[in-house]
């Protein structure tokens, strides 16, 4: 017996437990729509520069979302996401599918400094 991972695992986790809404805007001006996903904005020190003797602290924003929300038009690099909980806007710089129906969208913050 196989498990429908998306409906049995991802949907409860994303839509009922840990998810939050975000406005998804496809590049090229397609109509924005709301998706629910899990937003991570955790500490990272993996930024490597020339002078490695003094570290760089930052956060690595990631939005984990169910691929099934996007139907035949999966998210692509350069699409944008506005996370409601922190009011920040991001551009998608990389998309990392986990092979189980979840996409980890690697984000870069675009708000002016």
């Amino acid at each position, binding site marked *: 017996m196989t498990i429908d991972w998306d409906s049995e695992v991802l949907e409860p986790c994303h839509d009922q437990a840990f998810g939050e809404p975000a406005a998804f805007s496809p590049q090229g001006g397609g109509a924005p729509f709301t998706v629910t996903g899990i937003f991570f904005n955790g500490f990272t020190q993996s930024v490597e520069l020339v002078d490695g003797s003094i570290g760089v602290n*930052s956060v690595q924003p990631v939005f984990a979302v169910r691929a099934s929300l996007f139907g035949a038009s999966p998210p692509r690099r350069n699409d944008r996401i506005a996370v409601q909980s922190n009011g920040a806007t991001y551009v998608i710089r990389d998309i990392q599918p986990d092979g189980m129906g979840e996409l980890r969208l690697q984000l870069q913050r675009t*708000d002016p400094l």
Partner: protein
Amino acid sequence: MTTTADLRELTVQALQNKTGAATNIYSPRTWSTWSGDYPVILVRAPEEEGQSFGRNGPPAFTVTSAIHIAARIHVPGAESDGGAVAAEALLEQYREQIKAAVINYPPIMSQLQQYPFFRSSIAISDEGERPIGEVTVSIGMEFVQGPEDFYPVPVVPLQGVDAQITEPNGTPIPGATIDLPQS
């Protein structure tokens, strides 16, 4: 007497308000940089090298110190990796600002024989919330350290001078007695 420590301090002085980082300069720094810091400049002088004048004569060296200057910035992300383009352009500006501020700065120049080299390198990372970049400029500074800068030869201080001229008996004996140091 010129020392690498003096040159590091003068480099910090030379950079004040001469780059986009204004007075946000650390020398040295061990804490990690974070988003509230940028733009920031870090100055260190971890290396110096001395080349002897030769086997003859007292110890004297042509000393070359490498002053490391690193500028870190961040920029907003943008479509099609536009943040990296903006970061690269900004770091190139910093590279020229740093060179213009330090090379030929009169208080440093007066202590040097020459600037024998500079080396520069740029790196940008897309890890993290926004694109973060760094330009490092390593500037060589050459000066001389001679025997007066090293271990002093131990001496006994002169405590006084007594001078007398020998004359026949019955005549005045001219002379002087000087105690040192005189108050």
